[in-house]
């Protein structure tokens, strides 16, 4: 039993104690509230300790821990050792628990009758996460006291600055949806069907904001680093963050309607439960391995299917069960939902969100659905565009209509005068689009809807901010959403794209740009990139798309070059290098092995290792037989453990040719050598690239920033509203 496991056990025991005490407090025993709070704080401290301990063993390279050996290595730069925390599933469970627990600490400070029962329900997922950390946490050591020399290292795909921040933000978003779920459950238990709205609003808006931040970051990462060619690939992991967000944003709109008109009570409970259920469902799909054959970045199956499923079923049964029990008790709407009013339009908006959510969820569940009828198969990503595009038209129109309407009842005549200028603007946007080459009806209709939303919200935003910032921010967010929609349609449907082969030194033309591949270069980190001189009508530039061999993945890592302009980006994505001999990656030698390369016979005898404080120095002792003569050869590889930058010191054969270590594999005691006679064949290298344009991509980023900014301001606004709640003594 090590410190990490002790802390995991403490956290688990404390979560049980806190759960039982909060249950007693919920049952009316006020004296249980103090021990519940104490147990909950102990749980938080233990989780904090476990987190610190996990980082400690990662940074100190304690390879007796399976997790450390699986996701880090000595050669890794420190900033990525830090993100190895969430490189594997076991670590993400700890992170998930810590974030949920921290949010609970904030919720616990609220003096409200709903706090104690809400804390009980918030603690439920913590019990589940505590259990899995105890059983399959990151603190398991290798059996029999085995300690590997070095670890596997983290997948280079994850060794990116974005990966140090993107996963924790997404997990904060996922974890935060537990709070609206918990408050909704508390309201059902306490039969407080309206009072919860004000309490839950800041939390629901916070989830919207954080989740959106998470997947917008993911989008930037996909666009700039992964070279998917786009910012969104409808991958199961992306969909998994998208569907709870859709459900949550439907909840936010429903809560606003309920606060003003007292309707949609049952709908809002349903949406609060559903949002959290979708978080767990998406986690199950992406983590259980059921999609392993269908996703670029699913986790390896850890045999946690049973656990993940029971977690999901627990929340489904508790959540929907409580709602069904109270269904008849929840009073109907205080005011009927108007026919032609702002709230009826928002209700339709909720419906559109939930239809998008349902159809996306069906698509990502395709391997499960088709398994019922035959062999599991997936839908192509075009499915998601096909189903979401028509709904986006409805979304754009509602986005424009709703803010122009009054609550409760809208007269037809003033509405028409308000809507007319926006309609004219939408026609204008559509005509511009047609002039720029849009011909297909569906993108045209989406642009019309988005143009309408843009114009309508520009007017109400202006009016709102003049009346005070609180009145303008929601409309500003809608303005951002409309820009985002236009940017998405333009950049994903109307970019031009062509694949072209670039023989070294020769000029080729693609999309009217003249490209000349000038060869591969190596940067300071030892990563190869191509040098391409591009002569575009707008400007001449040197494109440097990265494309380097990864020993770890046994494949090429690629990173596109993006040349930015105001109206569009030029996107140059490397596809393949041909004529690049894989032998130059080195010839692998086992200990004692003899091989003939060219005229020379090499035998690898053994390593000499020296460990310094921040330097590992590995020399390979070799014997070379050349022209009947046997000479010792001793190339050296120095690795700076701080920076991970290798320094190769070659040794020389009698003829002057050099022998260099490419890499070493300490687990199997093998060495890869670059030997004379196998140098890089420079002639005949062909680089295949995809050249594309991304029109109006800046509208995507601008819309996303405006939308996010407004949602974060809304969080502030709803927190300020909360301060005006009349103080109710706890557990009245």
């Amino acid at each position: 039993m090590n410190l990490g496991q002790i802390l995991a056990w403490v956290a688990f025991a404390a979560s049980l104690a806190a759960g039982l005490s909060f249950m007693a407090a919920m049952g009316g025993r006020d004296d249980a509230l103090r021990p519940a709070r104490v147990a909950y704080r102990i749980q938080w401290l233990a989780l904090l300790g476990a987190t610190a301990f996990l980082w400690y063993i990662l940074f100190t390279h304690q390879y007796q821990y399976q997790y450390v050996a699986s996701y880090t290595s000595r050669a890794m730069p420190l900033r990525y050792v830090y993100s190895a925390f969430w490189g594997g599933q076991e670590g993400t469970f700890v992170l998930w628990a810590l974030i949920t627990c921290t949010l609970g600490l904030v919720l616990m400070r609220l003096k409200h009758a709903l706090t104690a029962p809400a804390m009980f329900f918030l603690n439920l997922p913590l019990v589940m996460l505590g259990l899995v950390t105890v059983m399959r946490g990151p603190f398991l050591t290798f059996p029999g006291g085995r300690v590997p020399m070095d670890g596997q290292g983290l997948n280079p795909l994850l060794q990116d600055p974005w990966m140090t921040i993107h996963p924790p933000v997404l997990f904060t978003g996922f974890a935060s949806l537990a709070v609206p779920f918990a408050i909704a459950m508390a309201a059902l238990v306490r039969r407080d069907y309206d009072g919860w709205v004000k309490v839950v609003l800041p939390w629901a808006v916070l989830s919207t904001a954080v989740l959106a931040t998470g997947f917008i970051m993911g989008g930037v990462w996909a666009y700039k680093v992964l070279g998917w060619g786009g910012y969104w690939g409808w991958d199961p992991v992306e969909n998994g963050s998208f569907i709870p967000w859709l459900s949550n944003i439907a909840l936010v709109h429903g809560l606003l309607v309920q606060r003003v008109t007292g309707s949609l009570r049952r709908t809002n409970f349903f949406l609060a439960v559903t949002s959290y259920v979708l978080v767990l469902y998406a986690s199950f799909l992406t983590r259980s391995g059921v999609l392993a054959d269908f996703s670029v970045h699913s986790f390896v199956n850890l045999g946690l299917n049973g656990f993940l499923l029971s977690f999901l079923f627990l929340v489904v049964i508790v959540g929907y069960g409580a709602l069904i029990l109270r269904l008849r008790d929840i009073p109907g709407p205080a005011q009927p939902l108007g026919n032609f009013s702002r709230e009826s339009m928002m209700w339709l908006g909720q419906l559109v969100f939930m239809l998008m959510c349902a159809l996306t969820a069906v698509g990502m569940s395709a391997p499960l659905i088709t398994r019922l009828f035959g062999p599991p198969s997936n839908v192509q990503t075009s499915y998601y565009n096909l189903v979401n595009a028509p709904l986006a038209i409805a979304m754009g129109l509602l986005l424009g209509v709703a803010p122009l309407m009054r609550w409760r009842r809208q007269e037809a005549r003033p509405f028409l005068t308000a809507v007319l200028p926006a309609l004219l603007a939408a026609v204008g946007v559509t005509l511009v689009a047609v002039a720029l080459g849009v011909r297909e009806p569906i993108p045209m209709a989406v642009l019309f809807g988005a143009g309408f939303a843009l114009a309508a919200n520009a007017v109400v935003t202006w009016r709102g901010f003049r009346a005070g910032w609180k009145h303008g921010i929601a409309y500003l967010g809608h303005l951002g959403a409309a820009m985002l929609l236009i940017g998405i349609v333009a950049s994903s449907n109307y970019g031009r794209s062509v694949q072209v082969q670039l023989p070294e030194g020769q000029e080729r033309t693609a999309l009217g740009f003249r490209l000349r591949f000038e060869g591969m270069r190596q940067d300071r980190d030892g990563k190869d990139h191509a040098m391409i001189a591009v002569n575009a009508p707008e400007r001449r530039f040197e494109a440097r798309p990265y494309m380097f061999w990864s020993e770890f993945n046994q494949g090429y890592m690629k990173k596109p070059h993006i040349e930015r302009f105001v109206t569009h980006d030029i996107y140059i994505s490397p596809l393949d290098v041909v004529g690049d001999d894989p032998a130059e990656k080195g010839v692998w030698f086992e200990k004692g092995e003899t091989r003939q390369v060219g005229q020379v016979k090499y035998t690898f005898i053994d390593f000499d290792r020296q460990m310094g404080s921040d330097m590992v120095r590995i020399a390979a002792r070799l014997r070379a037989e050349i022209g009947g003569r046997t000479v010792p050869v001793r190339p050296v590889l120095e690795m700076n453990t701080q920076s991970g930058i290798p320094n190769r010191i070659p040794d020389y054969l009698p003829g002057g040719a050099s022998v260099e270590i490419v890499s070493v594999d300490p687990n199997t005691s093998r060495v890869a050598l670059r030997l004379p006679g196998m140098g890089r064949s420079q002639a005949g290298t062909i680089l295949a690239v995809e050249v594309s344009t991304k029109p109006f991509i800046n509208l995507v980023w601008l819309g996303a920033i405006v939308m996010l900014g407004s949602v974060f301001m809304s969080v502030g606004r709803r927190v300020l509203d909360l301060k005006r709640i009349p103080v109710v003594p706890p557990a009245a």
Partner: protein
Amino acid sequence: MNLKVIVALALVVIAVVIGVSSFNKTVTPYISFAEARISSGLVQVNGVLADKQYVLEQEEQYLSFRLRDAHGEVLPVEYRGVIPGNFDQATSIVAIGRYQDGKFAAEQLLVKCPSKYQAEAETAGKPS
């Protein structure tokens, strides 16, 4: 029935219709070579490279090879486009396309390479 309910019902009906038709249109079942030979739509087959006698013309972006499935059956495949790297070292090849004129014309090739990461992560993940 008032306006908003009619609009809502219309939205639901449209969404269901579009959802079902798009699903059927884009779902690409993994099927056996025998089924692929008689199917007409876009399908997905997988297997391994049957032999090293493939034709690869990088400049022309043309690739033709023989795919062998788990039952030992062989299917000739033709592909035009950017050839995936390490194509001949793949442990499994997924081809998405349609069968025509005695050959499988692939529109997309997915190549799975031996991945050190997955294999070792799996062994490391199991406590003993």
